[in-house]
């Protein structure tokens, strides 16, 4: 497997060169160690894989970021406690069973008793409880965005015995389950505290020994910010993963990742841009694989200022835009038009809701009905944050501008401007940008994560929409214990959202991967790349 070879120089040639040198240096004696002069076993290349990410994790604390690139790498070392299957739910992994404690706001997790850390210590319930506490408590360890919204409803955890953990939460069990099912991990408490003062600090370091999880792979080589090499963990409790050795590196440029794929220096790469797809398709032995992700792109409209305080006007904006056309022309088909806040596969996604279809006549009539005929609006758009975002935003603005009774211009800004606009709340004195383009990945797999930050009113100064009915519908869903009833309520939330049009709904992005043809692997909607989901 070429891509797995550590170096791309032809080995036979090098052996000749170094063999000649060996005549005088005694190199012949260690010729077998050329691939790894440290004497390590690099394998024969047949059982290795190299994965190139778009960003290399720049902290080694596995609880520090909720970004996909981090999970791609660290989940192989610090495995998730549950298997999460997008659209299906959570399944046993390190936790082999779990039980909701009715009416107590708690769930008991029952851990396997044969799980060990890479340093040989047994995994205990105390490790799990402490890790969850460290994740959700901003005063412990690192201020973690996993804790703040990945595990947003989780209040704490306690070890009841060697293998039982009780997780406490302040919401419906179903919602909490989506959260801990996705984001619960296990650190070795004693190791982390003794070596890294992990009660107070982030885990940091630049050596393989600075990693210690229970996952199927352990770290054997690490160059901070550049590359990490993993090897199968011999004492792993579960099935043997398909590759002996895994290398993760990163290249921020899509063209660079594609070039590495073409020259077989990598076997799998993520975030390929639509314009680079043809290059991969034309290359030998590699192919494009894509999946509709959990990330929606949309334009919030803050309804506390004119003209967005009119539901008719907001609906008109949705009718003005040809989402299907934008997906086809700007995204080369790598997306799906959407008419609700979340993507398919998310718990509560309402499959009866169709996207708004472009209808200029209806849009112009609704504008007149709203009383805002002649309105002049501006759409603020980030550049380089989402798939072809600036072009998408400019097309949206242009299509709105084609209405006879509305003028619209796009303003391309730094993402910081958009980020500020999104968190500025709805008090008219507190924000200047009511209409902007942003993306949101509903990474927990549950609608709540895709709507509550935008629409709920109590204790949420950063909301983008002010509507009691929609807010109440979400709050109600958070307290429904029966999973089916809760899903129905979330479907209703999505229906209400479409009707009230708090967003100009655009599309769900697709994740585009370049992969060596002989690797059997299907991309996941949650954008995570798991080695254990592959076959050679």
């Amino acid at each position, binding site marked *: 497997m070429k891509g797995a070879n550590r170096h*791309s120089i032809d080995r036979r040639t090098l052996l000749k060169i*170094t063999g000649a040198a060996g005549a005088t240096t005694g190199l012949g004696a260690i010729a077998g160690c050329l691939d790894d002069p440290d004497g390590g076993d690099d394998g024969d290349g047949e059982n290795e894989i190299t994965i190139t990410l778009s960003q290399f994790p720049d902290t080694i604390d596995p609880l520090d970021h909720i970004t996909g690139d981090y999970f791609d790498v660290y989940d192989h070392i610090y495995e998730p406690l549950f298997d999460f299957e997008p659209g299906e739910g959570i399944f046993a992994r390190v936790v082999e069973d779990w039980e909701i404690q009715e009416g107590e706001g708690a769930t008991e997790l029952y851990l396997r008793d044969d799980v060990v850390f890479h340093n040989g210590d047994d995994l205990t319930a105390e490790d799990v409880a402490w890790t969850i506490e460290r994740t959700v408590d901003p005063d412990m360890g690192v201020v973690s965005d996993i804790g*703040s919204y990945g595990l947003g409803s989780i209040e704490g955890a306690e070890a009841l015995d060697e293998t039982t953990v009780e997780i406490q939460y302040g919401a419906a069990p179903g919602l909490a389950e989506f959260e801990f099912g996705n984001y619960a991990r296990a650190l070795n408490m004693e190791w982390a505290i003794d070596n890294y003062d992990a009660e107070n600090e982030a885990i940091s370091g630049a050596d393989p020994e600075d990693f210690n999880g229970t996952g199927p792979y352990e770290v054997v080589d690490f160059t901070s*910010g550049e590359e990490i090499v993993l090897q199968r963990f011999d004492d792993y409790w579960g099935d043997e993963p398909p590759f002996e050795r895994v290398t993760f590196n990163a290249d921020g440029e899509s063209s660079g990742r594609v070039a590495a794929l073409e*020259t077989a220096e990598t076997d799998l790469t993520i975030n390929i841009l639509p314009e680079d797809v043809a290059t991969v398709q034309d290359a030998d032995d590699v192919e494009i694989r894509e999946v509709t992700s959990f990330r929606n792109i949309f334009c919030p409209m803050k309804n506390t200022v004119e003209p967005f305080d009119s539901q008719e006007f907001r609906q008109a904006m949705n009718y003005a835009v040809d989402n299907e056309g934008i997906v086809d022309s700007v995204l080369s088909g790598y997306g799906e038009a959407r008419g609700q806040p979340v993507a398919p596969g998310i718990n509560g996604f309402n499959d009866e809701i169709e996207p708004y279809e472009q209808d200029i006549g209806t849009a112009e009539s609704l504008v007149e009905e709203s009383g805002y005929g002649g309105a002049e609006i501006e759409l603020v758009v980030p550049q380089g944050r989402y798939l072809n975002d600036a072009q998408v935003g400019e097309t949206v603005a242009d299509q709105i501008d084609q209405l006879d009774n509305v003028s619209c211009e796009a303003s391309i800004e730094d993402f910081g401007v958009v980020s500020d606009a999104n968190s500025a709340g709805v008090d008219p004195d507190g924000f200047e940008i009511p209409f902007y383009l942003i993306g949101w990945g509903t990474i927990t797999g549950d609608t709540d994560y895709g709507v509550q930050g935008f629409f709920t009113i109590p204790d949420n100064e950063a909301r983008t929409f002010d509507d009691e009915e929609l807010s109440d519908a979400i709050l109600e869903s958070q307290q429904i214990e029966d999973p089916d009833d809760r899903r129905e309520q979330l479907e209703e939330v999505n229906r209400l959202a479409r009707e009230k049009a708090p967003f100009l709904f655009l599309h769900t992005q697709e994740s585009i991967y370049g992969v060596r043809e002989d690797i059997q692997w299907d991309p996941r909607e949650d954008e995570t790349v798991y080695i254990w989901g592959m076959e050679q």
Partner: protein
Amino acid sequence: MTMGKFLVRRILQGVFVIWGVITIMFGLRAVSPGDPATLMLGEGATQELIEHVREQEGLNEPIYVQYFDYIQGMVVGDFGYSWRSNRQVEAMVIERVPATIELAIAATIVAVVIAIPLGVISATRRNEASDYGATLFSLLGISTPNFWLGLMLILLLGVWAGLFPTGRRPVGFAEAVVTLVRYGSVYDLLVWLKYITLPAITLGTYFTALITRLTRSGMVDELGKPYVTASRAKGLPSVLIRYKHVLRNTMIPIITVLGLQMGTLMGGAVITETVFNWPGLGLRLIDALDARDWPLMQGIVVFIAIAFVSINIVVDALYTSLDPQVREE
């Protein structure tokens, strides 16, 4: 003016320049859009958490307090912590310096090896085809954007011809030398060489063109001087005159420019490192920009400024020791 006074003045000027860079960077951070805490935590962070981080990072302090805290830290070598990785900025900067220095030196070697012979040929065969060829090469070299040249080299020599790798280098120079010393194997060194070739050509091309022009004009000036005529009259071979006397005198300003350009190369490596995914300071700066990691951005820019100023001072000192008149100017 004595050498000591001259150096003290230069150092004070350098300190002033570095302070200016620090202040400008801090000012840019203050006026740039995006709440740092929100940017640090990403989309979806709760208001409570954002406030917690603001408090923790001192972002609620008045801007002048933040500024003086930052200056105070800088004075004792504490550049703060990266917002994104929670690591010390100085460590993150220092670990990337070797790769950038490797690239800068390799680009300089590429430039010197190509440019000096070209410049000499161009000067000694004025108005001939080789002179026009060298001039054309220089014009192309100066006019070609770095990123485009890099991408073309990757496409032509990496992807199509398969002569050079295109991915991230698997081994650094220091590691390759360790392999050589410990095992007597040149394998890693050859790998390193293969990986650095295209970036070095890319970064060195503009520099090559510059040195070619400098060598040519220097040689043309020197060849017109009386000592050359006198040497010819004495019957010295023209090869000896050109390469021993004339070229040696031409090299003084070239060496000065080489020294000064090292600083420029360290800063200018940003684009080349990004195109080739070369793990140096430039790439780290781009990553920091993408992540809006201000402490890291500031640390890298200030480090480059310090390197630039230091190299300038050293070059000035060397130059003035060779030509004391400079001190008086």
